[in-house]
């Protein structure tokens, strides 16, 4: 039985798939892979790509923060922020990384700035695939 995948952010529902064979996510305590028949799971996600493997293709998106829940072959990702590769402008993303890197260097103790930089870097990496 394939996996049903739902990615929900506070402002929209990004992706819904009913035929996934595997989901790869970046949890705070390491990467996880979910196959059909997985035991109920609730984990916190870090900043990184979320991959949905389907019979005919493989979709990736960037997810920053949030939770992943698995129950009865339903995978629900609650992300605060999610962006699809098609929505990324690589040039703009590269510029953003530059700006944020300078900001983060200027304020070494600022966790929020580091978080923004990590998100921008991951976005750029996703665009480059």
């Amino acid at each position, binding site marked *: 039985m394939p996996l049903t995948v739902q990615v929900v952010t*506070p402002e*929209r*529902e990004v992706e819904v798939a009913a035929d996934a064979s595997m989901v790869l996510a970046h*949890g705070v305590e390491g990467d996880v892979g979910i196959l059909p028949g997985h035991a109920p*799971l609730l984990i*916190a996600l870090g900043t990184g790509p979320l991959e949905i493997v389907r019979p005919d293709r493989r979709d990736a998106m960037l997810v920053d923060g949030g939770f992943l829940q698995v129950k*009865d072959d339903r995978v629900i990702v609650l992300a605060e922020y999610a962006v699809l590769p098609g929505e990324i402008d690589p040039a703009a993303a590269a510029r953003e990384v530059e700006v944020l890197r300078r900001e983060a260097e200027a304020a070494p103790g600022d966790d929020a700035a580091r978080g923004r930089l990590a998100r921008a870097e991951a976005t750029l990496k996703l665009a480059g695939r």
Partner: protein
Amino acid sequence: MGAKFRKTQKRIDSIRSTTKITRAMELVAASRIVKAQQRLVRARPYAMRIQQAIRELAGVSEVAAEFPLLKPRDDIRSSGFVVITSDRGLAGSYNSGVIGVAADLIRDARRAGRETRLHVVGKKGLSFFRFRGYPIASHVAGISDTPRFEDAEALGERLVADFVSGGLDEVRIVYTDFQSSARQVATATQLLPIRRQDVEPSPGAIAPLYEFEPEPAAILSLLLPRYVNTVVFACLLESAASEHAARRRAMKAATENGEELVKVYTRIANRDRQAEITGEIMEVVAGAEALRERKEAS
């Protein structure tokens, strides 16, 4: 033409152009209600799922009751209030409704000897409370029209931090509930501590045996502040939809009043013009009569 008639005519022109503006505002507001409603609907799944995850976790985690965000305080010394108003007026009783509810709550809290702190969203609320000398802890403008999640996050995080540090013992949020495009109600609800009935496991429901990573308590401590943010976001979205609905209704009434006035003044203008013509005819007739009488006398 006489001065009186011209004055009325000018007045009609001015009312007509105002009516055009109010009509345009009515149409703009109407299209915004639809968009605001869509945003409201789109935000629901996330909020619902977060809440559900908390319910399931609260069932397995014995420590749930110990979380500061869930724990009501016995001695409430300072109350925080979030008041969501609009930046622009011309929205009927929209702002006065919310401000009225908030002002009542604040008065009650003060009577109970509590310190009150206000977090105001929207220029209208800010100018009201600032003018009356209420202590304002924070204010933000420019977001009430189309609120983004980041706005809710910023506000939510600040409130959670104040609550956890003990600066605030409870927080209430005053917003306008969008029940339908014909009915919006100024409402106050408790934001912090999170109400138990909102996150308690539903009776009889058996939570699946989850594997957790990190452990349940750590996940719950991540989930709870996010839940607060979604509640703030929902209130902002409800208020935005209500604001547009209130403005549409107010502008519709204004347009109708304007049209009614144009009718009344047109009647007055016609009467004045008629009176002037009658007056002139009378003068001509009287003049002719006088001439004739003089001729006959001579």
